């Protein structure tokens, strides 16, 4: 039983790592999910597998240790939330880059926001590196043209 689980965990995590190395963003996300579930099964196995023992005290014993199951439950919830968040980021990146490809995503995003394609990641939320159009900044020191004469 443990051997079977060990093989299964190896398969899950191996698949996860393979997917993680892919260029496609969605595959990266899927790969992380595979790794997470491999980890969860590892906790279950490490704490000891029993075929005939329930974790609930209302059934006839002997009982399996309920703590790893509680840990896995927590880990599943957290993994679910982080996967959802990562998918949202991936979706936003896809909207910006126009490809579901890590390479293109890197290249396209690396381009200057004022590049010729004019794509701005999110016109509504501009970074602090660009001045806010509503609030023109005050100059302490007046700008002069480089070749201009003395005032």
């Amino acid at each position, binding site marked *: 039983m443990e051997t079977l689980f060990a093989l299964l965990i190896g398969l899950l995590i191996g698949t996860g790592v393979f997917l993680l190395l892919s260029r496609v963003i969605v595959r990266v996300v899927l790969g992380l999910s595979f790794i997470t579930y491999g*980890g969860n099964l590892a906790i279950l196995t490490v704490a000891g597998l029993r075929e005939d023992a329930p974790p609930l005290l209302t059934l006839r014993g002997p009982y399996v240790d309920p703590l790893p199951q509680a840990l896995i439950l927590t880990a599943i919830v957290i993994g679910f939330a982080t996967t959802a968040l990562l998918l949202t980021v991936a979706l*936003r990146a896809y909207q910006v880059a126009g490809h579901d490809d890590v390479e293109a995503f890197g290249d396209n*995003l690396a381009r200057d926001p004022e590049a010729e394609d004019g794509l701005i990641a999110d016109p509504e*939320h501009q970074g602090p590196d660009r001045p806010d159009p509503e609030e023109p900044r005050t100059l302490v020191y007046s700008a*002069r043209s480089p070749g201009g004469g003395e005032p």
Partner: protein
Amino acid sequence: MSDLAWLTLAPILTPLGFGLGLLWPSPRPVRVGLALAGAALTLAFSLGLLVATADGTVLTSALGGWRAPFGIVMTADRLAAWVSVLAAVSALLAVWQAAADPDPARERHHLLALMQFLFAGVQMSFLTGDLFNLFVAFEVMLVASYALAVLGSTREQLREGFRYIVMNLAASALLVVACGLAYGVLGTLNFAHLAQRSAQLGPNTTVTAVGVLLLIVFAAKGALFPLGFWLPGTYPALPPAVGTFFAAVLTKVGVYALLRVFTTVFTGEAGVTNTLLLLFGTVTMLYGALGAASQREWRRILSFLVVSSVGYLAFGLGVGTGEAVRASVGYFAVSVLVTTALFAVAAVAERASGSRLVRVRGMLDFLPLLAGCFLLCALTVAGLPPSGGFVAKYALVRAGLAQGSLLAVLGVVSALLSSLITLYAMLKVWRGFFWGQHPAWLPVYRVSPSLHVAAYTASALVAGLTVFAGPIFARADATAAELRDNARYIRGVLGDAPVVIPAPPTGEEAEK
């Protein structure tokens, strides 16, 4: 359990409560006031913890009334209180910066609330006494940091944020596996109980393997060399106020976890992990310093300095003697405060010159006081004599030489060399930004005075490191002594009576 046990929960619940309050739509002055109040109150509670643990008391509060090895406990000893205060100081300054530098678009999407959730997660990681709860705290902290890393969705943020998230999720999966293995081998997850059980078990290769697994996870979170590639790209992409807190504290959470796990918990397995830490630390110091010297933008330079400072901390921990741990604990304070100050200075400098690049020249005429602050921080980060950084680095170097193994001596050489390179990088900033004649065609912008105040306050704290080096190192001494002898921690958490695990119920009682 003492009457003050509630104090261990206060620094976690305060930012959590204020963060929830900040989600409620309200006018900006109210939100800013709430955010500042939340951070200030957290600092007050953390200071309370610092005072309460000063005599070596270990405060413990058991959640839900479940006693120590069975339930989750929040624990504060000297080390936890110390780092909790440092994080709270940095948090207050970061909120102050966010308040002084309005960012309407991000604030509409709850920038201030997310910062409070981040503070809650960080405080929870410092004050937890349970390995799995440490994972949960990491996730609370990291989910808030993921949101902050991509909030605003600029191209740079999305590219770097995606890498940051994937890296940390992979590390978290590894942490879950390490928790499972630790539970499988030792049958518990409570730090104090883990320490007790692993001491009973004696040297054990499986426990060492779990230790190495934890080392890899925490090294990834703390950006030690081979696993820290994500940091120098991610931190400069963040908005300045958020970047300040990220740089000053988030990597230190990984270092704190290393300190906690390899001094209090797995003390018997020190050989392998200490050698690895020494190796990682030695390389990280040089890598960070060389990276800083290679960059041209304010916050890219500073991000590499963050990496370098983590290297010093890991080096001290890897040397492993009492003196070295003491130096690491002292350097922890230096690193957090000086990073906060440098990022605050950088925020003003970037705003004033309207550029991220360091190469502006002649800003000394416009920002003389800021230049003074920068010089102080530069001396501290390079570790030159009139600063607190010198005291800490001197202690580290002396501890390394006293230990005397070949690897430690190599580490000392690397520490000295990287201090020199750091000094060169800082001088490059000084020459590029402050020195020389300001070119007439470059504009100089007005920066809001309260942003200046944040930089001055942070620099004043850095100066305070020099003035109060004595008390700080006395405290570090006591902390290191406590870390080396974990009996007090174990007794504080588990009590004097030996832990009795009740026999598993057979099921007949449940039927009745």
